[in-house]
């Protein structure tokens, strides 16, 4: 709750401190509009009220889900963002689940093989991958798998103009289009979180109960996944909570490269079209989504480890 308050205030403060009001920004240089008209518009939208009243108005409107009007699309920001949101959520949810599973298994594996060639090469490759920008990774994938080996489409989320015969067809088309964007997000995420998982697991290996398990003659696989991985999972869940924001960054860049019609591409187009309200609204809606996801992660964390007080 306090967090939401901070975000709302932050946006209001930022928008106001920039010192431009929308009418000045977009209309005052247009000679066809007389100054008193602008004054009337300012009055109508409450921009001549004192700052604190504007602030209250802003909060009230935000709570009502009114984020302003997109100048480029000629529709309310909220509707436009909600229109493209499912695509982003689709990308994010799949890549979060898959990358968590893969980094989990690979991380435990590298930790088990620590010090050997597999571990050293593996961690170094991961390090390089986590240093590549999302958009470049995406461009390389496009270059290889859409141009030189034309297996996947160059852009979009669905084949333009195609009528899907049934839901199954639709899903196949969507998956075909989203393979490369998903791969980009996955590879980048895995590169990052394998290292976390590996280090967390290595730390657990130092614990006494690991030695006990070995001494008891517990099978290797069982030690790895039941004893080590389970205890290393906690820091991973905490990291996952911090990860959502990072994932959104990745989604914006990735969607831009693949022209995937999600929120990220919407933000890119908003920059290109100088659509400030869309940008502001999209930022706000994304922030709320990330905060909610974070709250859920915190709850899961508390469930997994009762020692953590919420």
């Amino acid at each position, binding site marked *: 709750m306090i967090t939401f308050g901070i975000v709302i205030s932050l946006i209001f403060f930022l928008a106001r401190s920039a010192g431009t009001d929308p009418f000045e920004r977009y209309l005052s240089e247009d000679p066809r509009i007389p100054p008193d008209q602008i004054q009337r518009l300012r009055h109508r939208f409450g921009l001549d009220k004192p700052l604190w009243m504007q602030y209250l108005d802003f909060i009230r409107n935000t709570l009502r889900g009114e984020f302003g009007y997109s100048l480029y699309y000629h529709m309310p920001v909220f509707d436009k963002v909600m229109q493209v949101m499912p695509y982003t959520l689709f990308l994010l949810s799949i890549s979060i689940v898959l990358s968590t599973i893969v980094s989990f298994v690979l991380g435990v594996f590298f930790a088990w093989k620590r010090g050997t060639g597999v571990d050293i090469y593996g961690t170094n490759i991961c390090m390089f991958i986590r240093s590549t*920008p999302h958009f*470049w990774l995406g461009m390389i994938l496009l270059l290889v798998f859409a141009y030189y080996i034309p297996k996947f489409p160059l852009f979009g989320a669905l084949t333009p103009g195609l009528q899907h015969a049934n839901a199954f067809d639709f899903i196949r088309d969507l998956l075909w289009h989203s393979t490369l964007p998903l791969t980009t997000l996955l590879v980048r995420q895995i590169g990052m979180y394998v290292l976390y998982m590996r280090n967390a697991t*290595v730390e657990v290996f130092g614990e006494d109960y690991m030695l006990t398990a070995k001494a008891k003659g517990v099978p290797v696989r069982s030690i790895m996944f039941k004893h080590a991985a389970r205890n290393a999972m906690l820091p991973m869940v905490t990291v996952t909570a911090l990860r959502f924001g990072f994932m959104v*960054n990745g989604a914006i860049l990735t969607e831009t490269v693949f022209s995937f019609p999600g929120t990220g591409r919407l933000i890119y187009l908003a920059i290109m079209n100088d659509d400030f309200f869309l940008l502001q609204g999209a*930022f706000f809606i994304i922030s709320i989504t990330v905060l909610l996801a974070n709250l859920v992660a915190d709850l899961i964390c508390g469930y997994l480890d009762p020692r953590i007080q919420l």
Partner: protein
Amino acid sequence: MRMRVNQLMGAAQSFASVYKRNKSGLLGLVILLFFIFTAIFAPFLSPYNPYKRVDRPLLRPSREYLLGTNDIGQDIFSELIYGTRVSLTIGFVAALFTVIIGTLMGVVSGLIGGGVDEILMRFTDVIMILPSIPLLILLMALFGKQSFFIMILAISITGWTGTARLVRSSTLSIKERTYVEAAKAVGAGDRHIIIKHIIPNVSPLIMATMIYAVASAMMAEAGLAFLGLGDPSHKSWGMILHYAETRGGWFANMGNPAWWWIIPPGLCIALTIASLVLIGQTLEEIINPRLRRR
């Protein structure tokens, strides 16, 4: 004074001897120094002026143009060399500001505690959780102008959270140590304690954080530049990729992509950031020997 210098020299020597034993740390240092060298001597190294048209557009790499030319006939190799300057400068300067803001926040929060600490840390948490690129885009849009300094400013305003948290937690532990309590008992003020005790003790930590901050500032810069928010008169690696994406790098010659335009800038970004991460890890291991045994 003499003793002080000797002490510092000794510390530097033992630091160097530990650092030398770390192969990946050395590799990182070599790569980073290579890029810094390129950045400093850019005018001597680059064969052409990166902002001037030198030949026909979209030429393939040849002996004359090592990495070919772009859509308006500029030499990509020269663009890349000058881009090193822009990318590294933004990275290092933004990281410096980031670390200064973060350290101030952390020290104040840790030392004063109570309500101030609560408020500052709550604020830090929010900024930390929020996705940084949309926040940066919003900031840049608000400033309204695309310039080199605004980019640095925006990155510094959003990037300090990690440093603040780290510095705060180590300030909290240093605050409890006996020598700080002793200093307080003889009447030392907050300013004295911060300058004489806390800053010297957290500075190794700040060094390592600074290196990571450079890496993340460069990543942020690359992302923003790619989205078209860079300064057109200071072409960075990210901006070269932005131009490649928007001005038809994909359909360069008869519908074939200009790979020579797309691959090199990203490779430079990735190598620099990887080298910074390697250096950062080595520093961390030196500061915190517990990590070394792994």
